[in-house]
């Protein structure tokens, strides 16, 4: 933004009075900044903005795109370089807070592995070309009267929203209405479907502040969720209501970040969460704690799920089931039962989630803690929520030959697709693949044309956060001048494509910035939320929109069939459930190229820079393995070998291998570290929604006679009798805690 022209090498030296120092180490070694007169250069502004003062930082509001949550950011800029990112206090998503991924965004922007030139596939390898050639090529393929027949061009992206989404739609419309697949591995498609079917609202508002009890069936809302920071913020408020502390119960096979802060952490056998939910429902109904009357069919179903049976099925003690039921009753109407990825990943995921929702309805949480959603007023800008189904359908459509040209943006299917999909080979069968990216990731390696994009700190855009206290539009502002001359903004590329197709509509805009500015200045009032001027929009960074019309909640009691009809096959030879667990930070692997993320220990296992397999001590004993030993985890579709980390935060029948490592490309920091559990997934989908059943793979675990030091943080696993983390019981706490 600072308005001086200077090449990148001179960058640090710009206003070098303080700038030059930054590059150089502080102690008296050769790297020290030289004090010799005339040894360094100082370049002044040419025509400075009045607020641009050397040595004084300027903050620019923008939006984080490290995940799809759309948190508002403030970028600290000095001497034209962005130095630090902080949350935007005005954002209804994160209210000034950030997560580790947001903090590490800087390394995404300054990453040494960014691609700086367009590349075209010529005989197996990617060779640099100029933008003109690239655009010419695009013109020839998907331009007006290009080779690709109408309707055969598709967009395959991560979750997108705002004006980028609008332009994608426009582009597809003009190409004869190909499809736009929005794919996120970390998604909650099942939960949304359940909400839609049972409540009549795909995205109701979960009011943590109103809740005094949260029961989560595998929903890692603090970690890998649609909006980690938002939920963490809500969770804090829920935990520390003045005088009354919220209670968190989590039932999941592998301890997630959410489970780690649970008051009661239950570990049902993988895939039996639904049964557990019904068990609780059984108690509620038997004790007459239900506030809505239960239809006979459902009652008949519940009779089959008495605590004893359920604890046999799930392995969770009966009194625990009773206890959860009691808590739900005690906090009647102030409870909140959520279900998420953790269970949204079995063949019966939908039914299980429905069972969880059933609890909400039974104790009358709906309307109290589960409130009607607040959709964004302008549907065209609303987020295209990513699902895993999109990936499967994309794969099918490729098979069916419905895809002749694919634009891939903001996702890395070759890496994140299950191995059995053979995404690499499938993509090969697509005649023309354009990948818009910053990095040479696995998908880019397969592309016919790779277009280098600006980093999100160099680019313009608008984003609509999927989850927020209230609907909002977050503006992505360019925080600093692009590092490289040859990269381009995503919007600019789209606009270039569209200009070619429809000069009349889009010819007027020199670049995406102009388009965006015009669009925003002419946006409807309920989107602008009282802010009129463009500069003011940029200053605020986030526009608080008026909520659109919400569908009222119409709770519907159904009888979910949570039990699989036939017993799981090959259970004998494959005793364990594989849990490829996503984690805050590494996410689905998109951040494996950020050293800060690699070096930040996993929250639970505290392992860094690699992969590991989590095993329960009991299981480990049976297998005769200890921390650091290598094991071979084998499914019908392949095998991976990695080191073991043993702890009792995982079910005895499960082995968890975190997502994110095992890259074959994607830069020096990601390449060739650890293993990718997705490689060995078994083909399985949720029966109702067709979402990918991520946790439905049975595996066998075998000890290898290889052992190394597990690279993790921390010596002692326990406090060794010190008072480091002291724990007191909640009733004591309640007696005393006033507001802080």
């Amino acid at each position: 933004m600072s308005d001086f022209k200077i090449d990148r090498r001179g960058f640090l030296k710009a206003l070098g009075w303080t700038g030059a120092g930054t590059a150089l180490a502080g102690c008296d070694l050769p790297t020290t900044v030289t004090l010799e007169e005339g040894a360094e250069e100082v370049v002044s502004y040419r025509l400075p903005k009045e607020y641009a003062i050397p040595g004084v930082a300027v903050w620019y509001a923008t939006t984080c795109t490290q995940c799809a949550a759309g948190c508002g950011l403030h970028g600290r800029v000095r001497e034209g370089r962005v130095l630090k990112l902080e949350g935007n206090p005005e954002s209804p998503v994160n209210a000034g807070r950030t997560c580790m991924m947001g903090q590490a965004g800087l390394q995404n922007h300054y990453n040494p592995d960014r691609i700086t030139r367009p590349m075209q596939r010529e005989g197996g390898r990617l060779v640099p070309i100029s933008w003109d050639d690239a655009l010419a090529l695009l013109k020839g393929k998907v331009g007006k009267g290009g080779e690709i027949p109408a309707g055969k061009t598709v967009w395959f992206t991560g979750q997108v929203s705002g004006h980028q989404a609008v332009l994608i739609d426009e582009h597809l419309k003009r190409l004869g209405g190909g499809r736009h697949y929005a794919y996120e591995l970390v998604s909650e498609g099942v939960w949304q479907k359940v909400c839609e079917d049972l409540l009549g609202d795909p995205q109701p508002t979960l009011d943590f502040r109103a809740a005094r009890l949260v029961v989560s069936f595998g929903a890692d809302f603090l970690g890998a969720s649609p909006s980690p920071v938002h939920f963490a913020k809500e969770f804090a408020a829920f935990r520390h209501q003045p005088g009354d502390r919220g209670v968190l119960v989590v039932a999941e096979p592998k301890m997630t970040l959410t489970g780690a802060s649970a008051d009661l952490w239950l570990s049902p056998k993988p895939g039996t969460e639904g049964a557990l939910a019904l068990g609780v429902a059984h108690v509620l109904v038997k004790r007459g704690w239900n506030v809505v009357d239960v239809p006979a069919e459902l009652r008949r179903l519940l009779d089959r799920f008495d605590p004893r049976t359920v604890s046999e099925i799930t392995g969770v003690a009966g009194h625990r089931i009773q206890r959860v039921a009691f808590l739900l009753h005690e906090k009647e109407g102030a409870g909140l039962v959520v279900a998420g990825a953790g269970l949204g990943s079995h063949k019966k995921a939908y039914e299980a989630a429905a069972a969880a929702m059933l609890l909400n309805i039974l104790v009358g949480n709906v309307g109290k803690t589960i409130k009607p959603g607040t959709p964004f007023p302008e549907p065209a800008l609303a987020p295209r929520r990513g699902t895993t189904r999109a990936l499967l359908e994309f794969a099918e459509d490729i098979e069916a030959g419905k895809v002749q040209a694919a634009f891939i943006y903001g996702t890395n299917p070759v890496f994140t697709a299950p191995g059995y999909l053979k995404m690499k080979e499938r993509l090969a069968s697509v005649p023309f693949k354009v990948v818009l990216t910053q990095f040479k990731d696995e998908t880019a390696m397969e592309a016919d044309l790779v277009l280098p994009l600006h980093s999100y700190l160099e680019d313009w855009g608008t984003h609509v956060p999927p989850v927020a206290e209230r609907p909002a539009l977050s503006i992505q502002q360019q925080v600093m001048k692009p590092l490289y001359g040859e990269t381009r903004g995503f919007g600019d590329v789209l606009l270039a494509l569209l200009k070619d197709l429809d000069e009349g509509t889009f010819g007027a805009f020199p670049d995406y910035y102009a388009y965006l500015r015009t669009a925003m200045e002419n946006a409807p009032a309920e989107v602008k939320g009282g802010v009129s001027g463009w500069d003011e929009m940029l200053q605020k960074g986030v526009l608080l929109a008026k909520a659109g019309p919400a569908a009222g909640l119409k709770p519907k009691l159904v009888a979910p069939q949570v039990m699989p009809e036939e017993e799981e096959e090959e259970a004998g030879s494959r005793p364990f459930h594989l849990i490829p667990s996503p984690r805050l930070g590494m996410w689905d692997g998109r951040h494996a190229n950020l050293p800060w993320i690699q070096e930040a220990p996993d929250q639970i296992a505290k392992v860094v820079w690699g992969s590991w397999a989590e095993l329960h001590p009991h299981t480990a004993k049976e297998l005769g393995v200890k921390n650091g030993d290598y094991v071979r985890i084998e499914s019908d579709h392949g095998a991976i070998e990695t080191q073991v980390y043993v702890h009792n935060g995982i079910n005895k029948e499960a082995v968890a291998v975190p997502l994110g490592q095992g890259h074959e490309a994607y830069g020096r920091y990601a390449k060739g570290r650890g293993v990718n559990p997705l490689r060995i997934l078994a083909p399985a989908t949720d029966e109702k929604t067709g979402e990918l059943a991520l946790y439905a793979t049975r595996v066998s675990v075998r000890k290898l006679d290889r052992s190394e030091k597990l690279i993790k943080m921390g010596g002692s696993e326990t406090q060794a009798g010190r008072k480091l983390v002291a724990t007191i019981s909640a009733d004591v706490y309640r007696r005393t805690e006033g507001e802080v």
Partner: protein
Amino acid sequence: MSLKNILENWSAYRKDAEKGGHHKYEHQWGMAIDLDLCIGCNACSTACYAENNLAWVGPEKFAKNQAMHWMRIERYWDQKDEEYSEQGASFLPMLCQNCHAATCEPVCPVAATYHTPDGLNAQVYNRCIGSRYCSNNCPFRVRYFNFFSYYESAWPAPMHMQLNPDLTVRDKGVMEKCTFCIQRIREAKDKAKMANRPVRDGDVITACAQACPTQAIVFGDTQDPNSRVAKLWKKHQVERGPYTQKKPKTDPEIRGYRIFEELNVDPSIMYLERVREEV
């Protein structure tokens, strides 16, 4: 420590070290960290890397305990022996406690670490000769040594453009540690001075406290009775000074405590006990 200090304030130094700290404080920066709110998400730690020019060392050196995380989230299993860890995990954000009776200060042969009038353990990087005595003598083990020169490895161009110009990039042979974001404190104090006003509560916030998604970390001047952190300290009956807390051991109703208080190092960070429902 200039000769002036030695000659004039020697006794003051000595006595006040026993009383805990410097002879006259302008501020006494401190923290309150609520372990019941901490979800162990690492946001603070990463924010610290970004703010304070921390070098990442890579797997080989990390395996040798040579990592440089000023802010580390320790995870403990308190129910290791039970079937399942039913109360989750215990997270502890551990950073330099900026003790008022710091054990690291008296042992430095060149006084590269000393106590500032702000009640901080200063670490003057360019004075450090790397005897590493301070780290040996730190009960919290929160002092990190530059065992190697990380400049080339950790900030390959253009990553070096992210470096914060308000702090030095430490080179090999220098001890470093959490400074309570001294550069932010300095900036706030300069601003206040230019405006001829005292530093107000909220003028300074450390990178970790600012990032924390649950706002578990509260930072401020414990000397200013109206600051949020001072109120918290008062509320939880934690006081500065040696280990003579009003809190009777029998009464569990106050959550505040300081780690290794019994060593009389007088830490500047109060932790609030983690609460768990007995279910």
